[in-house]
């Protein structure tokens, strides 16, 4: 049992978990993730590690409610536990002094960006961050990202905070104003990472994307997470999760993410029906 030391809703439907996992905390490097199995009937899901504290023996996970498993996790209290937390998995981000690194984080992608931005800063890079979300509340982890960025720009789809528009607009402006960075790291929805890659490709700016495939084991034994990079099949869980964004077939990734949409919908509906019933306890339901 991996104990949840705290769960805090940091934004609508975004929850920060601090979990007791001393071995994982000790070995964690930026870019890595864990596979979490909440309970006996549950599924294994990949969650990136947003932070770790080797001394305290804890890891921090930022979880967005998207389906049954994450919605059930959102109801957990401190003192409860996950049946299984495995890691740290994945190849860590390659961090060195590149010069200027632009970190582009969209939505839930901001959480995995946090340790990477921190690592890049520690290695002596100038870190310029662009964080985007649909609306003000959903641009998460702002103080944490500000602490590890030399400069930071915010965008929101609806203009409720920062500049109205997409992270790609802000990135294009940044490059126009400050010249080409040495590296761009993009983490967020697949469509966002694809757009960033398309923007930097003609400019020949090295770009990394951290991919978010469906996974089952997370250790390279099943191939559920496979994608195509430079025409070759790779496993996101062991070869990645980061790849050269200009070589990733994002269209394939987007398609493969849809594999279990009907089942996900079924699970979500059952969960909501279950919890709606409890919420209106005392009212007879037909």
């Amino acid at each position, binding site marked *: 049992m*991996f104990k949840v030391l705290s769960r805090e809703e940091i934004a609508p439907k975004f929850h920060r978990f601090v979990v007791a996992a001393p*071995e*994982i905390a000790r*070995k964690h490097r930026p870019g890595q993730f864990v596979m979490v*199995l909440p309970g006996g*009937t*549950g*599924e*294994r899901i990949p969650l990136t590690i947003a932070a770790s504290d080797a001394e305290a023996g804890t890891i921090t996970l930022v979880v967005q409610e998207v389906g*049954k*498993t994450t919605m059930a996790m959102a109801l957990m209290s401190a003192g409860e536990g996950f*049946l*299984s*937390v*495995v*890691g*740290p*998995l994945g190849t860590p981000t390659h961090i060195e002094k590149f010069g200027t690194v632009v970190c582009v984080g969209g939505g839930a992608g901001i959480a995995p960006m946090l340790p990477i931005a921190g690592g890049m800063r520690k290695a002596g890079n100038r870190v310029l961050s662009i964080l985007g979300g649909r609306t003000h509340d959903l641009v998460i982890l702002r103080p944490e990202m500000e602490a590890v960025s030399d400069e930071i720009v915010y965008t929101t789809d609806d203009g409720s905070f920062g500049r109205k528009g997409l992270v790609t607009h802000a990135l294009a402006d940044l490059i126009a104003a400050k010249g080409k960075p040495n590296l761009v790291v993009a983490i967020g929805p697949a469509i966002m990472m694809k757009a960033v890659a398309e923007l930097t490709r003609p400019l020949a700016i090295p770009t990394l994307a951290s991919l978010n495939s469906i996974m*089952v*084991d997370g*250790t*390279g*034994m*099943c*191939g*559920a997470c*496979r*994608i*195509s990079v430079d025409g070759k*099949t790779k496993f996101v869980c*062991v070869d990645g999760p980061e790849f050269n964004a200009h070589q990733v077939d994002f269209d*394939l990734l987007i*398609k*493969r993410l*849809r*594999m*279990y949409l009907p*089942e*996900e919908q*079924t*699970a979500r509906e*059952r969960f909501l029906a279950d919890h709606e019933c409890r919420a209106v306890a005392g009212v007879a339901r037909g």
Partner: protein
Amino acid sequence: MKVPRHPMATQEPLERIRNFAEVALGYSPEFALEEAQRCLQCANPPCVKGCPVGIDIPAFVQLIRQGDFTGSLAKIKETNTLPAICGRVCPQEEQCEVVCVLGKKYQPVAIGRLERFVADWERHAGLSSTPQLGAPTGHKVAIVGSGPAGLACAAELARFGHKVTIFEALHKPGGVLVYGIPQFRLPKEIVTFEIDNLSSMGVEMRTDFVIGKTATVHELMNGHGYDAVFLGTGAGLPYFLGIPGENYIGVLSANEFLTRVNLMKAYDFPRMDTPVRTGRRVAVVGSGNVAMDCLRVAKRLGADEVICVYRRTRNESPARREELEHAEEEAIDFRWLSAPVAILGNNEGFVTGLRIQKMELGEPDASGRRRPVPIEGSEYEIPIDTIVIAIGQGPNPLATKSTPGLELNRHGNIVVDEATMMTSIAGVFAGGDIVTGAATVILAMGAGKQAALGIHAWLGRLARGEVAKPELAPAGA
């Protein structure tokens, strides 16, 4: 002697394709006694030589004949740590039973069924006994992987009095015994029973621990304080065909398909959260035991058509004969001499079909088997919803690639000394599929036992100062 080999009661095919309960139902004590009487008690028993670990078969059969089931099991366990499992999954038709003298004129003694009988009898009677453990030696051994090789190695080392910890990457121990082999062939209660036995011997089981990620072999020996390490990480890397369309949605490796169903119990979705989908038509490429498991699982998940696509003939299928026969009884469509050429899909990225080319057997290749040769112009397409690739599994590199100095062969398997099972690193041993490539449970178990002897000898030399633990360089520092 003219008494025929006693049949094994099985679930009827039409009924059993609707459930995951065990197909082979086992012998009654009466059947077991009668079958044991068929044994000729040969003075020079070829069956013992046929067994990969050399179980004293005439002796255990004789004890059944005398009604001493407990004694019979004890005799088996002198050599075979997991008889309830091996009795079910060993390809006896290639090992002990094929050389049975009775089998020359009549049907061979049902050695596997008898082995299974005594193991089940003890378990049902609640009689398991913890074997005598040696005095604690003070040595700690780390076993990586809780499949048959690791479990057998752990049991043996615990008997010597060493303190053993098994590290398992998944959340449930058992390796291929839990994620690979389905419930209807190997009920998981049996695996749990065997692992509980290990716990009662003082073996510590640490699940959710990936060697190569959570800790390296180097860190196990320096830091975690283990005096020796056994690597039993199995064949956990799926092989794909490399044909067009293999990344369409609905193409799964056998490992993924079986892990969803066996380990994560996806057949019970939505009560269990992990889904699996077959659609109406499933094709499985391959014809070994893993392919048979995939075919029969697909049938039980409700697929209307389940098709086996294999480029050679039934004769060349490496599957255990009983699995092949059971699959045929379950109305699975076997397309022998058929090779998959391309996977077809639609714009949304979903599998829609499979293009197959017919084959014929040509000249023998280097292995002596007739090589399959494509028949020109014979390609045809079938509509398919799900394709499972069951053409083999290789060595997962997580543990090996994070252990500098570990000698591997060109396939990524670990090279070991055949007698001691020690690798190129002093104090690091290996056995099972990670050494041999994908093979059988009994071979893995035998390797685990042999490695335990090698480890025990090495620990003795360590204690006497004749050898030292290596100062391993940390991986990728």
